[in-house]
């Protein structure tokens, strides 16, 4: 399939209701960190962009939200034109300008503090990271505490960034500044808002 066709195919079949379903899953995941909110495959973006991450991008991004793509996605002209056609979102020049960062290879991603952290006056002006992971059960287990969690929750996301626990501790110290993470797995979404405290399991 040529790039022109790839960039047009694979959007939401029913934009209004698909976007609402995806948003509600992300909202519930953000409100209950560590919970996996399942989602059917609403979008079919070009590889290596995953169906779930693509659906989240379609539901949240538009011409008001500069995007930053990690090198794996940046390399694909098809993905850039797919995002351009379906969302109209401009590409950010630097990670610090991005409202959303789409990351297909989290294990190789840059440090969390390279993205916009917001300001002390406007902590909402930070980058939301959409991390593409295969699942949240096969990686190193993380014990979560904080708002949205009754006592504690455990997730074990695969392919997480290097030194993630250490980086996340620094992210929490910056509160109310900091980044929020949406984990897009193959069958749903889970979130780590900046308020979630991580305790490593075992050791």
């Amino acid at each position: 399939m040529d790039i022109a066709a790839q960039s047009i195919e694979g959007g939401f079949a029913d934009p209004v209701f698909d976007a609402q379903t995806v948003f509600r899953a992300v909202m519930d995941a953000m409100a209950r960190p560590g919970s996996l909110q399942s989602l059917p495959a609403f979008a079919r973006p070009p590889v290596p962009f995953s169906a779930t991450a693509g659906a989240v991008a379609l539901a949240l991004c538009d011409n008001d939200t500069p995007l930053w793509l990690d090198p794996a996605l940046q390399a694909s002209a098809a993905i850039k034109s797919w995002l351009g056609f379906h969302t109209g979102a401009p590409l950010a020049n630097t990670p610090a300008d991005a409202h959303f960062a789409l990351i297909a290879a989290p294990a190789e991603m840059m440090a969390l503090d390279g993205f916009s952290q917001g300001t002390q006056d406007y902590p909402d002006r930070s980058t939301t990271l959409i991390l593409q992971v295969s699942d949240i059960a096969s990686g190193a287990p993380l014990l979560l505490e904080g708002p949205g969690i009754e006592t504690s929750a455990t997730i074990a996301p695969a392919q997480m960034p290097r030194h993630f626990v250490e980086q996340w501790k620094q992210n929490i110290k910056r509160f109310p500044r900091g980044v929020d993470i949406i984990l897009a797995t193959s069958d749903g979404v889970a979130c780590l808002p900046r308020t979630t405290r991580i305790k490593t399991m075992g050791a």
Partner: protein
Amino acid sequence: MTAQPTDIATYNFAYLDEQTKRMIRRAILKGIAIPGYQVPFASREMPMPYGWGTGGVQVTASIIGPDDVLKVIDQGADDTTNAVSIRAFFKKVANVAVTTYTASATIIQTRHRIPEHPLTAGQVLVYQVPIPEPLRFLEPRETETRKMHALEEYGLMHVKLYEDIARHGRIATTYAYPVKVEGRYVMDPSPTPKFDNPKMHRSPALQLFGAGREKRIYAVPPFTEVVSLDFEDHPFEVQTFDQPCALCAAENVYLDEVILDDHGGHMFVCSDTDHCEKRREEGHRGHLAPEMMEPAR
């Protein structure tokens, strides 16, 4: 009355256009991630005046889906003008199911009360907020209040509460009683009576706040610490009532005073009409409940 298909087609689902919904949805996600912080958003004009719940309506319109069941209350009542018209609005523009039962609703839009029936996980409580800034009447300049939130400088609020004590012997604030969320942001719980403040603390439901005229959205995620500000020697306490509801005999609920005649006659009844009706259905009777009010067969 069900909406005709032709009535719905005139608008996008839930009235707002998709770009507006995305903008509000992004603000909601930031609000959840920073509990108690007021996220600015590009509030739209709605087909109702400011002060009628345009903020709450925009939040509800952005989260609602065809499977949701909506309940709308105004001062606890399902049957007042504001509640009835907002419910009719969503029935028309989103064709969703509506209810008055707290337990069966998935989204509850509220003006100034939290239902008496405990909320559950999965429910979303949407507040209509007139003035979102708790410091606004102490410091009118937005640039200053923003700095105060940034620096976590809330001394002024404690001075205000202290002045209450100096003047009245107790903290005289009875509604819009300021709370601290997760030990960081001081937040206005919207003009709910302080009676409802303890219900916000570690509630299993997600709480979203929309202020249309002031263009702010904020949120309290489930199981989040919400502490009413107070002093060690003047601890926070809620209103108490020396008599039960006159219709359903409920105690430990918030009561409204209803004037019965122009000779000083009055009664106190539940402000939460759904709670009161349910109790009467269960056979509870207050001292002014009509004896003959058996369920119609």
